[in-house]
Structure formats: structure tokens, C-alpha cells
């Protein structure tokens, strides 16, 4: 169990990382539209997954209701853009602020009353479901009838964040790059050090003078704001927001599968995990459809999830790093792997 701060990455590792993203960016120019759409969704779920992964992997707080923050972001963008014609950038900022505030309030209330562990997780579900129902009945935000973005026509606009499939591919890829860098930077920063210390032993870090109460609120609020950006982008990509789909349990579950399978709290785990699980889900679905047995995909995907947590308890990325460590310069990435999350 390492407690010391991660060593600074060597130049090779950073270059390797940039090269990987360059390849992904280049793929954006040559892949067919289907893969573009699929990867766009993969990147968006990766990005949201990273926010979730930070909260648990570095902050030690389990959320099963992240759809709350995703929904807040999505609705901020949708309402400001559709009702008032404002640029989605405003929506993203407002969404971040709202999600951070809601996250902080929720965290403040829970931690003040010593709600922790599985009870905090259950509280996040309750909060997400509560807001889903409230948004369902709220006419101003479209209620159950949802909100729709107008069809995209005309040239890509970075300012209005509207464009074709490739445009969103690059936007979401940029988001993931941002997420990877942010995760790596936080890990390397004093903040990440404090958060992990707090995650591993809250009492001990409090004894060392860490204001854990404040830091726990900070983790939740930070992660919420991050997820809200993802939610705003997701709304733009799918072209509509409905409380059931953007704030439902489905989103909360879908986003956490990738990071867990990929490797929690690591910079690359969420990306690798989502890159594997989401297309797998679609493949299973296509196979189920081919044989005319819908439901087969659920069985297959469910079994894959069980197998993943059974066989690779720390996730795929740490497993890759550990096996590659001895032969390549990936050693710095090794530092990015997750220490066992304590209960």
C-alpha cells in the first residue's frame, strides 16, 4: 500500500499517452460513422465514469446515483439552450455550479449526520430518484415530455457546440483527454494525496490535521460538477433529454461499469473499461437480435460483468500494467493503478 505521492511521469510516458490520443484523434478522421457514433458514446460515458471513479477511487465515497449530476448538467444545457437560445457553454457552467452546490449540500447533510459507506450510496440513489420524479412533474423543464434540440443543420459551431457526428467525436475525445489529465494531475497533486490518505484511513488523516469533513464535501462536489459537464454533452449528442433516461437508475449503473471493470481511480481505467464493456454490450445486443432472441444480450452482458469482477478484482488496466511493467517503460502508469479500496 503506497502512501507516498506518485513520482512525476517521465517524458516517455507522457509522450506515449499523447501518442495514444493522437491515434484516437486520427481514427476520428477515418472511422465509419457507426464506429464514430459508438465511440462518441463510449467517450462520453468514459468522461462521466472518470468523475465517478475520482469520487470512489480517490475520495472513497461510493455513489450509485450519479445520474443526478448527469441530469442536472443535461437539463442546464437543454433549458438554457432550447428555452433561451443561450450557448451550451453557459449551460455547462451553470450545470457545473448547480451540480457542485447540490453535491456539496448532499455531502454536507450526510457527513454531518455521519451517513457513510453503503448508507451514503443508498442516499445517492434516493436523491437521484427523487429529482427524477420532481423533474418528471416539472412543466418548465418539459416534464415527462422532455426537451428536444433542433435538428443540426449548417456548419459545425464550436460556440454553439452543434455539429455532425465527427464534431461530437472530437469534442468527447477532448473531454476524455481532459479527464485523463485531470485524474493524473489530481493524483500527483497534494489534493490527491490528501484524498487517498483520507480514503484509506479517515481517522488517521483527521488525526494528522486533515479537515476530512471539508475534503469529503469537496470530493463529492467536484465529482458532481465534472459529471454535469458529461451530462450536458450527452444531452447534446442524443438530441433530447427525458427525466427517465438521463436521470434514471440506468445511467447511474451504466457509467460505473466501465471504471470498475477498467480499474478504479486510475487515469486510464475508465477509458479502457468503457472501451471494452460498452461495445461488448452492443455486440451482445446485435447477436441477440441476429438470432431473434432479445434478452440474450442481457444474459451475456450480465455474465461478463460477473466474470470481470470475479477474475479481475482490480480492473483490467492495472492487470495490463502489471504484466507489461517489466518489459516496457510503462512503469509510470503502474503508479496510476489503484490501491485496494478499503471497505
Amino acid at each position: 500500500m503506497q502512501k507516498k505521492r506518485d513520482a512525476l511521469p517521465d517524458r516517455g510516458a507522457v509522450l506515449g499517452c499523447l501518442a495514444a490520443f493522437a491515434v484516437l484523434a486520427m481514427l476520428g478522421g477515418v472511422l465509419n460513422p457507426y464506429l464514430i457514433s459508438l465511440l462518441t458514446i463510449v467517450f462520453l460515458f468514459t468522461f462521466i465514469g472518470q468523475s465517478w471513479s475520482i469520487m470512489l477511487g480517490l475520495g472513497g465515497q461510493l455513489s450509485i446515483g450519479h445520474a443526478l449530476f448527469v441530469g442536472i448538467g443535461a437539463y442546464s444545457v437543454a433549458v438554457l439552450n432550447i428555452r433561451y437560445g443561450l450557448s451550451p457553454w453557459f449551460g455547462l457552467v451553470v450545470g457545473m455550479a448547480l451540480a457542485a452546490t447540490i453535491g456539496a449540500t448532499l455531502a454536507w447533510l450526510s457527513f454531518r449526520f455521519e451517513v457513510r459507506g453503503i448508507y451514503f450510496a443508498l442516499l445517492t440513489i434516493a436523491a437521484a430518484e427523487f429529482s427524477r420524479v420532481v423533474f418528471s412533474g416539472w412543466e418548465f423543464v418539459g416534464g415527462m415530455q422532455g426537451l428536444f434540440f433542433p435538428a443540426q443543420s449548417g456548419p459545425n459551431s464550436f460556440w454553439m457546440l452543434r455539429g455532425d457526428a465527427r464534431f461530437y467525436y472530437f469534442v468527447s475525445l477532448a473531454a476524455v483527454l481532459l479527464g485523463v489529465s485531470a485524474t493524473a494531475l489530481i493524483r500527483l497533486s497534494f489534493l490527491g494525496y490528501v484524498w487517498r490518505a483520507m480514503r484509506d484511513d479517515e481517522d488517521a488523516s483527521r488525526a494528522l490535521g486533515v479537515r476530512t469533513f471539508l475534503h469529503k464535501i469537496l470530493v463529492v462536489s467536484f465529482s458532481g460538477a465534472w459529471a454535469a459537464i458529461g451530462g450536458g454533452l450527452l444531452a447534446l449528442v442524443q438530441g433530447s433529454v427525458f427525466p427517465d433516461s438521463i436521470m434514471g437508475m440506468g445511467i447511474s449503473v451504466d457509467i460505473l461499469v466501465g471504471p470498475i471493470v477498467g480499474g478504479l481511480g486510475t487515469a486510464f481505467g475508465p477509458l479502457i473499461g468503457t472501451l471494452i464493456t460498452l461495445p461488448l454490450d452492443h455486440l451482445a445486443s446485435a447477436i441477440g437480435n441476429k438470432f431473434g432472441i432479445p434478452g440474450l444480450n442481457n444474459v451475456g452482458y450480465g455474465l461478463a460483468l460477473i466474470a470481470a469482477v470475479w477474475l479481475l478484482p482490480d480492473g483490467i488496466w492495472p492487470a495490463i500494467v502489471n504484466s507489461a511493467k517489466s518489459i516496457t517503460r510503462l512503469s509510470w502508469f503502474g503508479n496510476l493503478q489503484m490501491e485496494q479500496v478499503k471497505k
Partner: protein
Amino acid sequence: MTSLKGPLINRRVAMKGAVGLAAATMAPWVRAAAPPPVKVGAIMPSSGILAFPGQSCVRGIDLGAKFARERYGVDMTVVHADTQSKPENGRIAADSLIQQGCNVLIGAWDSGATISALQAAEAAKIPMVVHIASANQVTSQGFTQVFRFYPPAATIVRQSLAEMKALVTSVNDPPKGAVVLHLSNTMGTSTATSLDAAWKELDLPVKLLEYIPYDEKARDLSVEVAKAKASGADALVSVTRVNDAIMIIRECIKQAWNPKLIFSPNGNGVPDKAFYDALGKYADGAMSSNLWYNPKGEDARTIVDRFQSTYANEWLDANSGCAFEAVQIVADAVVRARSAVSSEICAALKATDLKPILMYSGPIKFDATGQNTGAAVTVLQAKESKPHVVGPDAIAEYKARYPLVPFEKR
């Protein structure tokens, strides 16, 4: 970014141009021959929470394709894609189908997935026939490739209430007050809103006493029905899906409430097989208005029989019916276009003027937004554990029975 994607778009445009050119130069021979083979992509929520209507649509598509091959001689291949009831998958499914070479799309049942799929269709300029999806925005957001067979909720409701008015003004002892029990989901809320407007507009001689909305995930409607009963209404207007439609009738029976009229405008659920399986004799008499097959149509009998022999345990319902019709719309367009090129199919779809094959509807024509202007509803009433068409008069199998037989006397 532009430099990266530039060449690809050029290549795609070039390729499409080449195909179009080929079609044009080959025209003399092609025109004389049978319509070219066409690939149709069907986007449905075959799994997930909407699997029930989704799979029903898949059956309609498959049967429709078989029928279209025989009727129009179209060599039609259907490729299915599943959205798993998630809106974001609409676009992925559409792009996947386009990638597999589909020339035209049909889908996607729920408005969220439809909008998401339409974006892909729009980008690739592949026409998409929306067999079902009720949100106004499907045709009002400026998509140029959309052709919606299904009417918006407001149209359905107005037509339904017109039928209801015809009924209550023609019977002795008409109901005096009505209570509206409706789902608070997308479909339920938009229907209820339209209901309020249409009720006033048509000046129905029944007083609207109360609206009682309930959550889609309601597990128990006893209080809602008790409230409805206590309002003193003698007509129940409900907007439901099948589970809650069953729950409502069960509660009516348990609470000994016998409305003279039970009517579901835009009534999903009431004409479903599960409704009859669950309620048996108690299902009889419940009325709903819906898009439904025309029992007096030329081919209706054959198609229904074929459906029955293919899928012994299922009914040809509104979902499979609309999906079936959507396939015929596509086939008709392909025949007229004599081309499998998407842009030509799209042009042909714009010029559609089709006498419906299975469904009851006026001539199917699409206006500038892509909305079918001919759509029409039928009124169904349950009789001997099957829904039967009782209105409009021209296609009625029976005359509507009124008032309902009290539940305890059945």
C-alpha cells in the same frame, strides 16, 4: 479538425455520386426490370423496458417485409437493430444500420431514440419512416429525412373525442360526468393536455370533473380509483399502458364502481392481448381509440390470418400494425423510385399517396414536415375477449354497446 474529416466526406459524396450516376446511366434497363433490391433497417427497443411494444413492432416489420415482397415484388432485406430502450442508442443503431448498407430506416417507437436516430439519418441523408413516436418534436425540429406515419397526440385525441361525442349523443341516458385517469409520462401528459383543449373545442355534452394523473411506475392505483369513484363521475376516461389499464379495471371491480362508459383515447394497453388475458370477461365493453387495422380493408383478413399463423401466441396490435404499414410505405416508395438510392427513395416518399394496405387511415401523404396527414383513429370495443372495431361507422364490425354491464352481473 476539418482537415481530418475533409477527405472522408469527399469520398462519401463521391461514392454516392458514382452510384447515382450509375443508376442514371443504367436507367433504360433498370426501369424496365423489377425494383432493385433494397435494404431496410428497423430500429426498435427489442430489449429493456420497452421490449413489449418493441418486439411487437419487430413482428410487424418481418411480416410486412414478406408481404411487400409478394405484393410489390420488392427484393427487400430487413436488418434489425435494438436500442435497448436507451435514447442514446438510437443514433448508434441508425449509424450501424446505415453502415450495413441500409437504404432506408424504420423506427424507433419512443421519441427519444427516434430523435437520436434521426440525427444520424439526417447526417447520412437516409430517409427514415417513423412508424410510431408521438412527440410533436419529431416532425417539428427541422429534420428533412423524417416521414411519420403516426399522428401527433393532438390529432388522435381530437378524432377520438369526435367519435366519443357521436356515441354519447346517440344513446339514451348518456353519462353526465367524466373523470380522466391518466399516466404522467410523455404519452399520458401530452394526451391529457390535448384532451382538455379538444373537449372544449368539440363541446362534449359530458362534464369533465377531474384529472387524476399517476406515475408510470405506480404499483397500486386503489386510491386513484377511489378518488375517481368519489368524484361522482359515471364515465371513466383513461390514458394508459397495459399494466395500469389492467390495474384500473381490477380496482373498479374491487371497489364496485361501475361507470357507464370506459373510454381510452389514444388507448395503449386496452387493445392489448395481456388486457384480455388478465381480465377475461371483465374486459368486455371497455372502449379505446387507436390506430388499428381496417377490418373491412381488402387485405386485412389475409394479413391478420397470416400474422396469426406465424405468431400463434400474439395479436396483430397497433404496434405491429403500424410497423407493417411503414414497410408498405417504404416498398411503395421504392417501386415508384425504381431505385434503391436513398435520395431517390426520399423523393419518392415525399410524393407518397398510398391507399393504406392494412391500417385504417385516409390516403397516406406526407406534408412538408414529414407528417402523415391521412392518419385516422378507429374506436375499439372489447367483446368476447377480443377488441372489435365499432367506429367510425363505415368500417364498424358491431354497433357500440352502451352502457356497460355492471361488473358483478357478468
